[in-house]
């Protein structure tokens, strides 16, 4: 599904990713944890195609294709979805219009006709129900004035609408209350198929209790410094990151 080889990226003169290696197979769920400022969001942004980050070295293949050669919109159309850690408010852009355009641009890429109005509404209702998204929010501008939790829900709702192959969820749990966390996680799990993969970025075990990872990585200072099974989550929750930093210094 996804193969990242020795990925380096910088913004301005500042190197943030310093050689990331990661392989995600179809159907797998990977968790990426790590201290603040380690480069987790940068990694997801680079994968999603954010141009402010310069890739200085390395390769990324997505389903065999050179992902880095594609503009952001084509990556999305190929099936990469990133749930933003900080979703952007876009005043004046109506949510329904935005979704309709996004869905139809995906369809066009696949050579399909635009969805008829009725079919689109049906799809929207179905996906809204999945994450218990308040229908009233649909009439507003994208994310405008949404609460922190509503914004995160909206991310997963969009993911449900677009049915990506690879979802990168950047701290989707932050801002969600306990019930919303459960609902959203269940939504993510319902959407999961043996062909789709997920990368979950989080600081906390509680999300990973719902979305259970197959592999857990620790990203530290622009590199993946530890990779283990799901038992690592509990260990990090208990001990923090200091012991990993110490391990690194010893080597």
């Amino acid at each position, binding site marked *: 599904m996804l193969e990242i080889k020795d990925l380096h990226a910088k913004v301005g003169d500042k190197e943030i990713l310093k050689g990331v290696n990661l392989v995600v197979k179809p159907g797998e769920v990977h968790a990426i944890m790590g201290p603040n400022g380690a480069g987790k969001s940068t990694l997801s942004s680079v994968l*999603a*195609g*954010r*141009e*402010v980050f310069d890739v200085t070295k390395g390769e990324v293949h997505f389903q065999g294709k050179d992902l880095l050669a594609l*503009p*952001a*919109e084509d*990556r*999305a*159309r190929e099936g990469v979805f*990133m749930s*933003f850690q900080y*979703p*952007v*408010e*876009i*005043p*004046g*852009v109506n949510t329904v*219009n*935005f979704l309709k*355009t*996004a869905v139809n*641009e*995906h369809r066009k*890429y696949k050579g399909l006709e635009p969805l008829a109005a009725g079919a689109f509404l049906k799809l929207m209702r179905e996906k809204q129900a999945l994450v218990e998204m308040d229908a009233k929010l649909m009439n507003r*501008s*994208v994310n405008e004035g949404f609460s922190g939790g509503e914004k995160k829900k909206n991310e997963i709702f*969009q993911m449900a609408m*677009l049915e990506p192959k690879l979802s990168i969820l950047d701290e989707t749990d932050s801002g969600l209350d306990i019930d919303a966390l459960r609902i959203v996680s269940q939504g993510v799990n319902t959407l999961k198929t043996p062909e789709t993969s997920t990368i979950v970025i989080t600081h906390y075990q509680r999300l990973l209790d719902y979305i259970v990872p197959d592999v857990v990585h620790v990203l530290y200072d622009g590199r993946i410094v530890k990779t283990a099974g799901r038992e690592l989550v509990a260990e990090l929750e208990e001990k923090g990151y200091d012991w990993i930093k110490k391990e690194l210094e010893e080597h």
Partner: protein
Amino acid sequence: MSVEKINKDFQDLFVQGKELLYNGVNDLMNEKREIAFNRFIEGGIPDKKNENYKNTDLSKIYERDYNVVLNYHRQDVDLNDVFTCDVPNLDTHLVLTTNGWYYARNHELSGLPDGVIVCSLQEASIKHKDLFEKHYGKYTISDNGVTDLNTAFAQDGYFIYVPENVILEKTIQIVNLMRANADLMSFQRNLIIIGKNSQAKFMVCDHALSSVNFLSNNLTEICAEENAVVDYYQLQSQTLKCSLVDSVFVNQEKNSNVLNHTVTLYGGLIRNNIFTKLSGENAENHTYGMYLTDSVQHVDNYTYIDHASAKCFSKENFKGVLDDKSTVGFTGRIEVRPDSQQTEAYQNNNNLLISDDAKVFTKPQLVIDADDVKCSHGATVGQIDEDALFYLRSRGIGAKEARMMMVFAFTNEIIGKIRIEPIRERVAQLVEKRLRGEDSHCDACKLQCNK
């Protein structure tokens, strides 16, 4: 060519054309003509030395040689057949003007409530002399040559009167058509009077049907009497060869409510002067505008809101999208007079630059002489929000489309102020087409001279 030469040309025109100029209208109009002309001769066309014309060099457009036609010229086609309005679901009373004159073959308006008058200004000056004399030239301010130039040379235009206690359901649509074989300068003068407790809506469209150079000097006086409600929408959609110097003077009496909404879709040089005087207490004014510019277009909006009475409310918002090498000016003058307590006045001007070469000059001018005043103003010049753009693209929306959505979103706020749904929808469509670079200003015209 110098400003002196331009002024000299106007002087010659006035003297040579005197007989025609004075023909067909009432004495008061000609008295005012004489006074205005004498004042114009002293001041002349405002140039860049004039504080209010810093952003627009009028000499550039006035130095061209234009024909001036001082009597009504017949068109060789019926403009009613040539032009049909394509605002769907909107049933209007349609009035055409041609090159500044009330069109002679305008269809009789049927179903107008009793007492409502819609006719040419010339006709009104004679047939409705008392009404005309009570209002003509009463709301203009002659602080620059532009107003006087119009008063000196204007011969015709439209006259609309709605008596007391009448609610005019249908929108009156006025289509100003410019059509000629050679470069032409015109002077149009309009007068709108909305009586006490009455309500009326206007949609004014400026179009050019020929691809010669036009210079229109238009002036409209609007009087909203006590408790009147007036919607005045203007859609300026001309060609790059057109220059339009358009002044609107609004006078508002007690408790009146006026919405003044100007969308500048296209044109070569457009200078809008929008003067509003809140003469009676509790008057409410909304003045909105939007301009979309590209190529070498120049659009300059000058607004002046005069809080001449207490307890009035004014809200002003102008927004524009600038592309290519276009230039834009905005001046927002708000004056609150010493006794105008409990005034609320708000002003905003926001500009979105989508090219590096476009330029905007924006300036608030607040003169506040009362102390119990709520007043705010803000001006921004910005680019498309890159974070938002990336967000849209990350959902599979192509860069170009995403940009379009952002620009359209920016204009939405102003479009949303239109209180008549079919007009709002139609303007939204026109704006979208315009932003997509599809020729929108010629859709409604059967001549299709550009095709």
